[in-house]
């Protein structure tokens, strides 16, 4: 049996090109990985991580479990396309085997089996199964068409605006399966066979179309089908559909503990090209929902970066609140990629910078517990005062790191991309902490907290947010609070919640003093106050607009007092609120029982 | 120029019987000018002027270098007044602008803080046994020259006009800062548009040039010149003025302050040596005159008798322009026509003086 016809050419060329390019890309990316990352892969390959990765590939790349969680209809759409196509290929392969046994069949033989198999005996089970799978895929295609036309029906307020390459690949993809249906049906019309879909449509065509026309139609249909496939394959490595293949190695590498960092590496390419531009990240973005800014969201950021057309104003315009990252079906580390893009735009190592940091120790007091107020707390002296009351009530001997002015923790600078310069501040503060011999470091600023935990080398020093510290005081009985009947609502600061995973401790402290009412979006879904230090692009008015929307949501709980656990959030939300806004520490200080 | 506001700043200038106080800088660098002033007043105008051998410096340079305390300079000033009183004069004229500023300031301070006058009288009496009366009028010598400008114009042998074209000469007038900036009412025309030199220039046929840095200080700045380490400041200020006036192509600069005249002359030399820049025509500098020299030329005095050979910037181009007869060969002669050699050549003089004025040729 010969598995070749001229119409196969587009497919053969397309598939060859695609595999060559995809494999080539992977190879280059892998080779360019830093040595340490390569070691991680070598160590990970023979471990259980590999099995885990296989399972995850199945769950995510084929079944799209995470999208299901966000939006079932969207999940079904992606699953029907991905998993359906995968099944079509695998069942098709079994069908070939069932017909021909284990012998070499070229790729086009599998793909266009219906065309070449007209002389073979029909196997109704496969006819049925393949038609069922085709229907499954076509249902996904229909949904995709529907999503383009009416996105809201699928629960998405916004869909991605695509580039030209994407549009070509998308159009080709949309036509692949209808073309397959047409081509297989035409063959069925001429040679019989086919299941409930292709068989029935073939029979219908057979009855209505003349033989000659039908033969021409069949030839044209297969050409069209093959061309769609070929076009799609050629476009794939350059379009968003690269994610289909890229997500697979990404899952493996992630299981081998590869991570993006503040400096870009070729691992970032796996993440960049694993983005399917599904656009799920658009809706959670408050820049979009409140300000109507619609060209900076992660999907556009990744796209621009992938095609090397990233402009600083796009890279800068992100609150880095992490709301999109929690929703990303591919689990791309969006904040880190944003950060290392900024690093590439801005980081200029300069030995002379911050030379003035020597001899600037203005700390006061001594004790095993150190308190680092942080810049923003210094601007909100009530928090500082409250912490002092808490420390006094608990009888804690405190070393005040920066009450009379200190050096910034370095996170704002890092977030702006000047990572090397930020290291100087980090080193300075680390040395300061070490010099004063503290074992616990308490801060009331989540921005500082995150950088202390993630970027400082503070082995032997326990870093606590004041909410954790206060809860510990309560649990050990060193601090006793009075319980009242005030109703509070709590705003999760981005850097504390999504950033550092601290959700429960502040809530536990609040509940020790009054009733806690949760806003509509809370914990992982909590809104950002809008004044994030990570964003240097939006204006004051825009920050205020976000603050107003956040305050409105918090006030809608009916609480009398808005509580947060971040000096910046406090200041920001207070601008938009009609109710009182307090830091956790202030509430605690007011409830201390002596 | 449309400036008429000077008429609002008039002061009483005595018409005769002056007690003359010499200037440290003027007698050092422009001894001919002081001589010319006395000659013009006594000979041309027939006025009485006393050149008292007992008077001294007002110590103003020391005062403004801050090494002479206020109380001390007040007492020195009081001594001058005492000498005047003893000589039977009451119209004090100072040859120096710094001195003029000092006398004005001291009188104003005595007015404002009478206890300082008391103290000064006490000090003077203790130190010298002298007593004084305050002068009836205090003027700078340029005020006196301004006062007689029309009389001088009537006697003029030359005008401040280009003898060839008949066009008025373009003159930059530079007023010493302490003439009117400390007490605007003490200067003719006030501090913004002082008229003391402009009035002479206009009366004698010239035309004043108003350029952006007209009011800027010459840069003496006392300690800023007197200490070598600070002279970068001093030269920079003159440099700024010269740069600003050069586009107006002035025919000469005239100053009423001896220091300013000296610095604007000497700094042209230094700038030329340092940077190769000269500001006047044909690579020569801009001649800088004292108002006595200007008056002397107008009255037909010999330039070398006025001491104009003591300038670093050559005045001959100006003399030629004004059509003044002079003996080029006599410029650098010593007493009694004795040959004493010539100054070395300098960039600001355009070409070495040897080639021009060697009498042995």
């Amino acid at each position, binding site marked *: 049996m010969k598995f070749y016809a001229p119409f196969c050419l587009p497919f053969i060329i397309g598939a060859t090109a695609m595999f060559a390019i995809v494999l080539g890309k992977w190879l280059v990316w892998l080779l360019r990985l830093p040595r340490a990352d390569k070691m991680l892969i070598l160590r990970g390959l023979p471990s259980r991580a590999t099995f885990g990765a296989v399972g995850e590939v199945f769950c995510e790349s084929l079944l799209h479990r995470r999208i299901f969680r966000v939006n079932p209809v969207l999940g079904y759409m992606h699953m029907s396309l991905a998993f359906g196509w995968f099944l079509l290929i695998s069942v098709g392969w079994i069908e070939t085997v069932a017909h021909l046994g284990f012998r070499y069949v070229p790729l086009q033989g599998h793909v266009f089996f219906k065309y070449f198999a007209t002389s073979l005996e029909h196997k109704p089970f496969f006819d049925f199964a393949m038609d069922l799978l085709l229907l499954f895929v076509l249902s996904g295609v229909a949904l995709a068409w529907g999503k383009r036309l009416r996105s809201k029906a699928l629960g998405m307020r916004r869909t991605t605006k695509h580039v030209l390459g994407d549009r070509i690949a998308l159009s080709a993809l949309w036509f692949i399966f209808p073309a397959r249906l047409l081509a297989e049906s035409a063959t069925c019309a001429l040679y019989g066979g086919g299941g409930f879909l292709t068989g029935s449509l073939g029979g219908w065509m057979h009855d209505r179309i003349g033989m000659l026309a039908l033969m021409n139609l069949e030839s044209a249909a297969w050409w069209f089908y093959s061309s769609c496939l070929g076009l799609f394959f050629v476009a794939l490595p350059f379009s968003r559909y690269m994610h289909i293949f890229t997500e697979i190695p990404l899952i493996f590498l992630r299981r081998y503990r590869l991570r993006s960092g503040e400096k870009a590496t070729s691992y970032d390419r796996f993440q960049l090209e694993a983005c399917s531009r599904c656009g799920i990240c658009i809706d959670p973005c408050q820049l979009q929902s409140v300000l109507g800014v619609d060209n900076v969201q992660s999907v556009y950021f990744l796209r621009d970066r992938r095609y090397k057309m990233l402009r600083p104003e796009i890279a800068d315009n992100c609150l880095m609140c992490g709301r999109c990252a929690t929703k990303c079906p591919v689990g791309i580390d969006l904040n880190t990629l944003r950060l290392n893009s900024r690093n590439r735009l801005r980081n200029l190592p300069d030995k002379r910078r911050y030379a003035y940091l020597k001899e600037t120790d203005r700390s006061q007091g001594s004790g095993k517990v150190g308190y680092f107020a942080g810049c*923003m707390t210094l601007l909100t002296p009530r928090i500082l005062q409250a912490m002092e009351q808490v420390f006094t009530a608990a009888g804690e001997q405190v070393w005040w790191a920066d009450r009379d002015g200190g050096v910034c923790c370095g996170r704002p600078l890092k977030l702006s991309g000047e990572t090397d310069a930020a290291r100087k501040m980090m080193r300075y503060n680390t040395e300061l902490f070490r010099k004063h011999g503290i074992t616990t470091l308490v801060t009331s600023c989540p921005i500082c907290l995150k950088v202390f935990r993630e970027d400082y080398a503070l082995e032997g020093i326990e870093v606590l947010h004041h909410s954790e510290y206060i809860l510990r005081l309560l649990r050990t009985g060193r601090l006793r609070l009075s319980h009242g009947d005030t109703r509070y609502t709590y705003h999760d600061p981005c850097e504390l919640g999504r950033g550092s995973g601290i959700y429960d401790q502040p809530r536990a402290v609040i509940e020790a003093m009054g009733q806690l009412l949760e806003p509509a979006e809370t914990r992982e879904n909590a809104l950002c106050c809008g004044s994030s230090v990570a964003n*240097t692009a939006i204006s*004051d008015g825009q920050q205020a607009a976000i603050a107003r929307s956040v305050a409105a949501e918090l006030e809608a709980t009916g609480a009398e007092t808005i509580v947060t656990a971040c000096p910046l959030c406090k200041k920001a939300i207070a601008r938009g609120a009609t109710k009182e806004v307090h830091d956790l520490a202030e509430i605690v200080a007011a409830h201390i029982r002596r | 120029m449309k400036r008429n506001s000077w008429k609002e700043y008039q002061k009483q200038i005595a018409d005769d019987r002056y007690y003359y106080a010499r200037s440290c800088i003027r007698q050092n660098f422009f001894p001919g000018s002081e001589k010319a002033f006395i000659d013009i007043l006594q000979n041309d105008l027939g006025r009485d002027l006393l050149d008292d051998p007992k008077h001294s410096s007002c110590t103003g340079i020391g005062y403004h270098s801050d090494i002479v305390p206020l109380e001390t300079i007040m007492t020195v000033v009081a001594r001058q007044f005492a000498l005047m009183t003893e000589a039977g004069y009451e119209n004090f004229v100072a040859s120096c602008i710094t001195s003029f500023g000092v006398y004005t300031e001291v009188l104003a301070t005595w007015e404002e803080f009478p206890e300082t006058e008391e103290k000064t009288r006490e000090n003077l009496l203790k130190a010298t046994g002298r007593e004084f009366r305050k002068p009836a009028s205090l003027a700078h010598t340029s005020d006196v020259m301004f006062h007689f400008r029309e009389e001088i114009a009537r006697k003029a042998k030359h005008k401040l006009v280009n003898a060839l074209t008949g066009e008025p000469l373009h003159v930059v007038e530079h007023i010493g800062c302490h003439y009117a900036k400390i007490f605007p009412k003490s200067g003719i025309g006030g501090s913004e548009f002082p008229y003391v030199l402009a009035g002479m220039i206009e009366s004698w046929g010239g035309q004043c040039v108003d350029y952006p840095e007209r009011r800027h200080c010459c840069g003496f700045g006392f300690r800023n010149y007197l200490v070598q380490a600070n*002279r970068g400041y001093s030269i920079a200020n003159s440099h700024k003025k010269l740069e600003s006036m050069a586009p107006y192509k002035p025919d000469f600069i005239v100053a009423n302050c001896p220091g300013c005249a000296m610095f604007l002359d000497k700094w042209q030399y230094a700038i030329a040596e340092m*940077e190769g820049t000269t500001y006047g025509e044909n690579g020569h500098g801009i001649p800088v005159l004292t108002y006595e020299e200007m008056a002397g030329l107008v009255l037909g005095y010999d330039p070398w008798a006025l001491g104009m050979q003591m300038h670093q910037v050559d005045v001959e181009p100006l003399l030629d322009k004004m059509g003044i007869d002079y003996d080029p060969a006599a410029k650098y002669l010593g007493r009694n026509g004795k040959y004493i050699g010539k100054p070395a050549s*300098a960039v600001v003089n355009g070409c070495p003086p040897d080639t021009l004025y060697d009498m042995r040729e």
Partner: protein
Amino acid sequence: MASINFGYTISKPRAIDVDRNNLRRSDEILHEMPELQTCIGCGSCTAVCTAGNLTEFNFRRVHTLVRRGEYQGAYEEMNKCMLCGKCRLVCPRGINTRGVVMLIKHKLGDL
């Protein structure tokens, strides 16, 4: 020219000479960040400045100089900023001060 050692040189003027300064970059900066022009010079930014507490860094002064076309040293000065963002919270005109720091550094980085 004679090589006389005077022992000093002509001092350079320190005044901001708007005629001599090239305002192109300053115009670009103001074009991108027109709100910077609304600065009323209150000095709140400098008063709270973390870097200004430790050094002579004066944000208000530096950006004012940049607006006048005095770019010399502005990049180095701005590099003293820690970008902590306190100034932004206190600015009565709501100027995006951190954005200003980054913009000035971006525009003047190659000087």
